[in-house]
């Protein structure tokens, strides 16, 4: 599986769709957007930080483990750091696979596991 992990302080630029073969039948994308209201508080945005070397290492491991369960061809993971204003994306994930089931499950489980274990923090 082809894996791309990016952390950026710039607004997330969604990469052009590149299909690795003609056997691709599914492309699942997720964007996490900063909301205005968080636990009844009005926000202008959120401040993100990461322990980047550890985050990369754990994301790579999570993606490898998920690829064994849900074989996919490509995963692109982009997480923004620093200040992210309301309405802009803090996270972009794209997973490409032959069939939709694998890609849908991969994306859902990858985000759940990131939220549980990958050292990234958001704060108001």
């Amino acid at each position, binding site marked *: 599986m082809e894996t791309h992990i990016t952390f950026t302080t710039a607004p997330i630029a969604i990469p052009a769709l590149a299909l690795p073969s003609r056997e691709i039948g599914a492309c699942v994308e997720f964007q996490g957007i900063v909301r205005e209201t968080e636990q009844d508080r009005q926000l202008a945005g959120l401040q993100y930080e990461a322990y980047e070397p550890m985050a990369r290492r754990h994301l790579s491991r999570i993606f490898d483990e998920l690829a064994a369960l849900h074989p996919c061809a490509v995963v692109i993971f982009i997480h923004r750091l620093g200040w992210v204003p309301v309405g802009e994306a803090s996270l972009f994930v794209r997973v490409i696979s032959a069939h939709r089931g694998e890609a849908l499950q991969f994306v859902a489980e990858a985000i759940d596991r990131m*939220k*549980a274990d990958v050292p*990234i*923090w958001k704060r108001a």
Partner: protein
Amino acid sequence: MQVNLLAFAQARDQLGWSERTVVCTPEDTPRSILARVAPDLRVKLMRVAVDQEYQSWDHPIGEASEIALIPPVSGG
């Protein structure tokens, strides 16, 4: 020996620093190091990473070079 002690997010706020070098021995544990360096830090909800892997607070650090204080994560 020396290790680099890293503090992120709420841990950094509580301590007032993000990184410092600590003199220690291979028998030291993250808990014993913290007891010397920052005895007042509230670590109850925090995890600790030793050379970028989650580790028990009471496991000897051995030849590790980096210890990181990991408050509850909230990526996404």
